[in-house]
């Protein structure tokens, strides 16, 4: 089966200590590694304020995985997310060609903070 490119963002509960956070992220990375997934990108947004409380928590630890995988791997990954109660919320998105190209540009820093609005924003 040909590989699609996916992007997963998940939020961990802020109650964890640092190394608990790390090995939670590691756990999900191993789940992916087990099913021979090719990692493309990995971002750690750290602790961010949530726009609305989830499970009575107002901040969350965001993490982003970007990888190429077979469609069957996603079910296993999401099962793992559902089982783990440290994860407040997760979202997996399949990337089309525009978003793949956009993420590639974003990763090599084309949209740094300053020019973020110019490139992304209005051309008016």
């Amino acid at each position, binding site marked *: 089966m040909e590989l699609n490119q996916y992007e997963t*963002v998940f*939020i961990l509960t802020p109650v964890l200590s640092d190394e608990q956070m790390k090995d939670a992220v590691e756990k999900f990375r191993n789940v992916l590694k087990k099913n021979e997934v090719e990692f493309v990108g990995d971002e750690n947004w750290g602790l961010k304020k*949530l*726009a*609305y409380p*989830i499970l009575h928590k107002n901040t*969350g630890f*965001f993490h*982003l995985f970007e990888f190429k995988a077979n469609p069957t791997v996603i079910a296993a990954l999401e099962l793992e997310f559902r089982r783990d109660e440290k994860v407040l*919320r997760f*979202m997996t*998105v399949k990337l*089309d060609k*525009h*978003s793949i*190209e*956009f993420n590639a540009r*974003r990763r090599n820093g084309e949209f740094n903070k300053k020019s*973020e*609005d110019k490139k*992304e*924003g*209005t*051309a*008016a």
Partner: protein
Amino acid sequence: MTLVNEPINRTQRIKKYCRFRKSGIKYVDYKDANFLLRFLNEQGKILPRRITGNSVKFQKKVAVAVKRARQLALLPYVTDSLK
């Protein structure tokens, strides 16, 4: 009796354009919350096309991106003072 020389004060309506087509953006990223804020009003609701001037294709992409951002708590579903 036609209003021949009656000055019809038609306000000069600026031609709206789709900013995505103009600036060549192809993908609306749901992770970029402060860019999506431009398409929300104060209560956090998605602005209609006639206000933002987007084309149908990109208004749909923006709507999908906003809904995903809301799911990930990057954007609020409803709030009183967003800006």
